[in-house]
């Protein structure tokens, strides 16, 4: 089954979105967003994988050894950094919501304010 790693990525994404849809706590929802986002790591690394390939670092292996795709690894690094910063920013928004309304339950946040 050569598509199984890609299907696993789709499954992780759906699990994360399901968690966000049914979430009763904004901190939990932010965690679910991180899960949904981590599916992209699995997908990218799955695409870049090369059977028998090693890490694309030539400090201790001869140049020309088969290696996995470094481009997608760099993309995953970008992905991780952006994911972490977005999580931090969302969590600070949750803290502010808790301060202003006294709740972190998205169902209770129905009033329009402003």
């Amino acid at each position, binding site marked *: 089954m050569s598509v199984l790693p*890609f299907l696993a990525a789709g499954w992780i994404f759906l699990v994360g979105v399901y968690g966000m849809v049914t979430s009763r706590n904004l901190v939990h929802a932010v965690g679910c967003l991180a899960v949904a986002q981590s599916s992209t790591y699995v997908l990218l690394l799955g695409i870049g994988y090369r059977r028998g390939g090693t*890490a694309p670092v*030539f400090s201790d292996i001869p140049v020309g050894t088969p290696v996995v*795709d470094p481009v997608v690894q760099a993309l995953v*690094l970008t992905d991780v950094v952006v994911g972490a910063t977005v999580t931090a920013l969302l969590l600070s928004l949750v*803290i502010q919501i808790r301060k202003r*309304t006294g*709740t972190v339950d998205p169902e209770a946040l129905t009033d329009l304010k402003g």
Partner: protein
Amino acid sequence: MSRRVRGTVFLLAAAVFAVFFALTCTQLPHFGTADHPYGARAVAAAVRQHTANAVSSVNFDQRALDTLGEESILFGAVLGAVVLLRRARDEDRAEPAPRPVLPSTLLLGAGLLPVTVLVGGYVVAHGQLSPGGGFQGGVMLATGLHLAYVAADYRVLRRVRPLAVFAALDAVGAGAFTLLGFAGLIAGGAFLENVLPLGTFNQLASGGLVPLVNAAVGVEVASGVIVLVAQFLDQAVEIDEPAQDAGGRR
């Protein structure tokens, strides 16, 4: 929207997504294929630029402009968190009291702090040679410093972490990346072009601009994470919630 309606909408959307995603997956190149046209070109370019770590070469040389954008996202997020979590007018700042710490925790923390900071510095400095780089090493540096909080207490952390200095370093790191980009323009090339001498392959001073950009990113990430964590710690440790309106405030 009631919970039931929302659940139904999600199930429908998930079913559509699952079908089309699975169909798309069958059209992708096979898992583990030996044919990676972009990867092969990126590896060839990394070797040409004398950068042993191909991932660092992609990040800090071949697509350095993207990394500049990524670093700006990090900078913007730190700035946003600082603005969002600043002390409101009606919040009091309480001085955190020292708490007793187990001697074994103190010993382990005090022993591990310098080791973690040293390893973080090593990972940043060898980003062009071995796995790691500015982003990974920067996070290690920042978390290593917070061992002072785990092992001792908040006041010790505040002493080893002058926040104003790290906030300034964050901006310096972000600015240094852009300034290094102008080196290419001054030398008559393109923005962020690798114009420095490339050095010997697999030596510390190799890869031209890569180690410098890498170091700038390391400084920015380390101080950015420190400033970010400090905002959350402030909320938990220092800021007292106003007591009179526990049930919500307008």
